[in-house]
């Protein structure tokens, strides 16, 4: 009797352990949630910060100082020309810093009409996502993809021309494949990736 009680207790303990482990795994890995917050919400929060900073830099720094006050230029070769970094460069520098600090997310700025061809979409989700946000203004695109054997939750957000500086610079750039951008047009997309396992 005593032995049977021990067996039952051990089985119960094992079962509760497995249940707890499964719950923890579901909580932390492989689910569409990150530490209790849905991945979509995490991506949206990250994007809110990125988009806000990007808009502030573009409007209050570059557009104001370059286009309105005309006191300093923004230039791709800002070191050589002692100029401001372009908004897209500013954004990428942030992405590079983040990449040095953490592997828990990554982001990039891509476009169907990239000045630098390396910033054209490469993965199927990037291609679908960029097309979706360009065709469906105001909507985001969410998908999953496996890259290098790892599964990612990938969100794509429209990158919109928020100031005349965006439009004039891109339309005039020697390497641009498109020259008819207008204010508020979707010029590309921000792609945020969160590892799922």
């Amino acid at each position, binding site marked *: 009797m005593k032995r049977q009680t021990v067996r039952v207790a051990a089985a119960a303990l094992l079962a509760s352990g497995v249940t707890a482990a499964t719950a923890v795994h579901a909580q932390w890995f492989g689910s569409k949630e990150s530490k209790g917050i849905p991945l979509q919400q995490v991506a949206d929060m990250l994007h809110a910060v990125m988009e806000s900073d990007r808009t502030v830099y573009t409007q209050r720094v570059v557009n104001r100082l370059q286009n309105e006050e005309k006191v300093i230029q923004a230039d*791709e*070769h800002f*070191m*050589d020309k002692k100029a401001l970094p372009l908004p897209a460069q500013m954004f990428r520098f942030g*992405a*590079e810093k983040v*990449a*040095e600090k953490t*592997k828990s997310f*990554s982001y*990039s700025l891509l476009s169907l009409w990239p000045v630098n*061809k390396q910033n054209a979409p*490469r*993965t199927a989700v*990037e291609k679908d996502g960029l097309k979706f946000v360009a065709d469906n203004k105001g909507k985001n695109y969410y998908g999953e993809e496996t*890259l*290098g*054997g*790892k599964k*990612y939750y990938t969100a794509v957000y429209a990158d919109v021309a928020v100031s005349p500086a965006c439009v004039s610079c891109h339309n005039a750039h*020697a*390497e641009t494949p498109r*020259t008819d951008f207008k204010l508020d047009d979707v010029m590309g997309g921000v*792609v945020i*990736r969160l*590892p799922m396992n």
Partner: protein
Amino acid sequence: MSRTVMLWLVWISLTVPAALFVLAAIVYGGNRSFLLIGKTSNGHHQIELACDACHISVFGGPEVLQDACVRCHGAELKAANDSHPLSKFTDPRNADRTAILDARHCVTCHQEHRPAITRAMGVTLPDDYCFHCHADIGEDRPSHEGLKFTTCASAGCHNFHDNRALYGDFLLKHADEPDQRETPRVVLVEFLKSRKDTIKVPRTLVATDADAPAVHRGDIDVVTAWAGDAHARTGINCSGCHTAKAEPARWIAAPGLETCKTCHADEARTFVEGKHGMRLRDGLMASHDGPLGLFRAAKLAPMTPGEARLPMKMDQTRTSLGCNTCHSAHHYDLATAKVERCAGCHDDTHTKAYFASPHYELFKKEVAGLAPKGSGVSCATCHMPPSETRRPDGSKSVFATHNQNDNLRPNEKMVRSVCGNCHGLQFTLDALADRALIASNFTGLSGVHIESIDWAQRRARERGEHRQ
């Protein structure tokens, strides 16, 4: 005792001490040369016995080596505005590319101890590595269609890391420059002029001011040499170098790098980054303290010309390289340090040809006072050029870098820091691409023409026409 037991005892008595010996060499040091699994590259051979300079932990794989690479080379890559930074390859969207060529790790392209496949700049990959990511370049750049991928980095057009003098807009900006600038740009001289009013020079000292204890003041030649030299002219007395603030009573007989760097911090920092001083870099140890006092912590011995892989003069093979090797104690003559000291050890074709070159003629004129300061071209002009640094308060300072390897390879690194001060870009690119001209120390004209500026101009024209 059975034969088997005896054999076991013999085996153990031989193997265990041997294993302990090898283990002790790995962990504590000593003569580790037998541990080298292959000849080291030219960039690292000087520090090859400080194994833990690269193998910073006995555990771990590529990440450990990567940390070591970044620890020494990270800052220079950042300064070079690295065209292929790590973040480009850690981005998951490039996972398919890194599966083919794992550019997240330096050792993918720069393997060490692999002499059979090691080429210039320590590259151990086949020269067509650009293909893996830029196979479709011909679609975007018709001018590149049909070009071999082995020529990307060998035709004076692109570098993997440092393209500061090769990017399209730079080529266009400098496209029409004459071969020779009317007046050379003398960065250091101009910087010092601009700061002339802010530099406070104490009273010039004379021989009777020497504050060395009497016991060290016996050699009148030494005192006379000091009194006629830059240190006395700028108010630096004997005690300034021969004592340390922490121990003012202790007389330092032969001040070295540790003393010099208290005033010449940038020069000292860059000296240990180059091949002359890299053995003296902090943290490079030949051995560490070990059990029973069998091992003592010791830094690597300074480099000597005899250990170099370049041709050196036989009578200098044992000279230890420190500050005073080129800047003689008490006689810090810069003109001597800029040419004579270099040629005192280096015995290669390029060095020997210098004395028949137009550059040397300019240097002689400057030294003779027949040409403006800075207009002469010495060994140091090209190999230890002015370098910019920022102080913690953000202010700019210019100094002569003492890392003479910083701009050597790929030699397009010299375009901005050196050649462009006197010559136009096309003239420079052509000259740097002509190996025979380099050997003759630029006596004559280049027999090579680099087409990158032509192509950049053509591209700009085509894009302009396309836009219209």
